[in-house]
């Protein structure tokens, strides 16, 4: 079955079955999957729901670029990530990432690299809504090009534990 090119940013619930069906390969003995789901707590606070938003024009292109880059780096035929946007309840899936390869070592490595890259390099934002009625955007990784960052900072200098209350 041919791989199908489907949106990487999706406002409807993510389906692992659909993702698997769209990426079937008889030559791949290993399939690694990551699903990031909405937790009921973050930094010790009770979370009721999340809202994800993205800048889809960049995100759709960047996810495809990242998939191609990682597929080439790890020599795996299939790398695919899809991210949900909109309001999500506890337990709903925010991100699905899969890799299919001939063997498991490179397939694990590709899947992990894919998840890290999508989390750190793609314009997607998360606003958490807490049990006490407040909400906050979770602060993360800057997308500012290295050349434009102050010397002390770097792209990898993420602060996912810090929230901007709004």
């Amino acid at each position, binding site marked *: 079955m041919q791989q199908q090119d489907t949106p990487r940013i999706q406002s409807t619930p993510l389906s692992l079955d659909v993702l698997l069906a769209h990426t079937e390969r008889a030559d791949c003995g290993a399939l690694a999957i990551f699903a*990031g789901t909405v937790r009921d707590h973050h930094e010790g606070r009770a979370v009721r729901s999340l809202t*994800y*938003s*993205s*800048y889809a*024009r*960049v995100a*759709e*292109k960047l996810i495809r670029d990242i998939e191609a880059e990682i597929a080439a780096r790890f020599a795996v035929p299939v790398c695919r990530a899809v*991210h949900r946007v909109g309001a999500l309840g506890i337990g709903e899936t*925010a*991100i699905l990432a899969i890799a299919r390869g001939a063997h498991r070592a490179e397939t694990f490595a590709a899947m992990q690299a894919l*998840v890290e890259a*999508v*989390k*750190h*390099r*793609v*314009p*997607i*934002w*998360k*606003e958490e809504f807490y049990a006490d009625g407040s909400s906050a*955007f*979770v*602060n*993360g*990784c*800057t*997308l*500012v*090009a290295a*050349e*434009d960052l*102050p010397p002390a900072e770097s792209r990898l200098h*993420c*602060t*996912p534990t810090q929230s*901007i209350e*709004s």
Partner: protein
Amino acid sequence: MSSGPSPCITWVDERVQVTVECCGVASRIAGAEHLAVVLPEAATVLDLFEVLAERSTEMAELLARCACARGDAIVPRGTQLADGDELALLPPVAGG
């Protein structure tokens, strides 16, 4: 595109007009999801950011960590802007 002044529009009496989509927390801090900004000819992303930074200290602090997108690409601060550019302010990301 808006046809007259509004709280979302910063008027600078020059030639390049761009629209700026404020993503994530930037929309809260800017107080708007879309801004239209008119800049001097040959203005760069950095010039745009300096204009936007005047909105508030919070905005200035956020802009230091924001990337700027044009179309489907992230562009460096030195990029020269063209009339009609559709830009986006991309604050630090937290997917997944």
